[in-house]
């Protein structure tokens, strides 16, 4: 049994929130840069150039890449032989969110009641935490602040087995088509196929943070990702939605076993401010 203090986790999550909010990943920066080289639309190239300048300013000045610093989504993989000591794990995570969003000049975008008062919690808590127990004694932390411009354009559909590959492709492409300029293209398209309704949604969210340098390990799904990407980039939506060939940087698919009667498909869109930071304790 390995002891890991709640305070160690708080400090690490605090650092990861700031890192994700200020410093875009090299993979995303490279993908936008390559897209600019290939983009035939002059206005689209100008937009991509502004995004690259924006990444650089945020990195140099330690300011938020986007003013929507999101809801703080945290994926935790906790080794079953790790023991959190010295406090409540969830309190430690929320304390990290409180401290990072307050001290780091990040926008507080969370309201306590979703329907009635909609009163801002003023410190961006609570975090949205997804925990999985895994073998081992480490704690794997992925912090992925999620803006709502793209979150609002996300969709889920309970397809049926007869819909097949074509049904999946059409649904994902249509989600991006319907979203048009709203989710801040070029987007990263997170797709979850299988499991249950909430399982598909969670996989789609996880896939918005997959490295752009790592294709799907299953060659059939790697090919499907490319097939969908090609169709999306033929929509013409382009950077910022004003016309161009780069509408998505990547399509990332994750799958899971599902029921004999179903084929849930979730599409979680992420804008070009695709922020995430990862660490293992």
């Amino acid at each position, binding site marked *: 049994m390995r002891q890991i203090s709640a305070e160690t986790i708080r400090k690490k999550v605090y650092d990861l929130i700031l890192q994700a909010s200020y410093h875009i990943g090299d993979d995303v920066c490279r993908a936008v840069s390559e897209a600019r080289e290939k983009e035939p639309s002059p206005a689209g190239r100008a937009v991509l150039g502004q995004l690259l300048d924006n990444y650089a300013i945020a990195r140099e000045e330690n300011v938020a890449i986007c003013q929507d610093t999101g809801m703080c989504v945290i994926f935790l993989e906790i080794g079953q032989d790790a023991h959190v000591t010295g406090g409540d794990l969830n309190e430690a995570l929320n304390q990290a969110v409180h401290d990072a969003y307050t001290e780091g000049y990040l926008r507080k*975008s969370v309201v306590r009641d979703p329907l009635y008062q909609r009163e801002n919690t003023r410190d961006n808590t609570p975090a949205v935490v997804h925990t999985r127990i895994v073998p081992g004694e480490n704690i794997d932390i992925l912090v992925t602040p999620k803006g709502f411009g793209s979150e609002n354009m996300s969709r889920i559909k309970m397809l049926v087995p007869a819909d097949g590959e074509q049904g999946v492709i059409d649904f994902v492409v249509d989600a991006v088509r319907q979203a048009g300029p709203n989710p801040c293209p070029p987007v990263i398209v997170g797709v979850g196929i299988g499991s249950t309704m909430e399982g598909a949604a969670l996989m789609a969210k996880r896939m918005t943070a997959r490295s752009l340098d790592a294709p799907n390990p299953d060659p059939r799904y790697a090919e499907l990702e490319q097939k969908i990407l090609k169709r*999306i980039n033929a929509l013409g939506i382009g950077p910022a939605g004003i*016309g161009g060939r780069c509408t998505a940087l990547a399509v990332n698919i994750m799958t899971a076993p599902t029921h004999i009667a179903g084929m849930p498909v979730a599409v979680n869109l992420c804008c070009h401010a695709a922020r995430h930071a990862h660490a293992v304790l």
Partner: protein
Amino acid sequence: MAAIHIDLPLTPEKVASLRAGDEVIFNGVLYTARDAAHKRLVACLDEGRPLPFDVRGQLIYYVGPAPASPGHAVGSAGPTTSYRMDAYAPRLLDEGLLGMMGKGKRSPAVIDSMKKNGAVYFGAVGGAAALIARCIVKSEVIAYEDLGAEAIHRFTVRDFPALVLIDSQGNNLYEIGPKQYQTEEQNG
């Protein structure tokens, strides 16, 4: 094509001359408002109370800025998605608002109201928020301070770049632009 320099506030003549796809550069004063502030502004109109600022000729920027860090007038301040303000925008256009700035699509009702009132919808690049913040030299909260980032701010901007997304005739860059680049491959 050279960018069109516009001193704010707007004038009906200037707005009428703009066409979808034009690049513009703003100097002067504009106001911010997003979801919660719009709800309150329209509640003012419903109840016959005065608005916290005179919207005639003004440009409203849909943004909830990040807090300013030391040495900055404002934190990162890119546009938010505009359709959430569609339910409220025609009421403000009827009061004389001439410009809106955000990102993303607008409803047919908003576009009809823009045509009727001679107003224009501008776009700033979503997500280019730290870059945009450099063009905002002064920020003051003028109403609804309790809303935090959603309070109404008065921004003084210098060389703030934007595009005309939908002009006062209803021409829409989100329709014109993508048509030039879509291909048959989209249908598989």
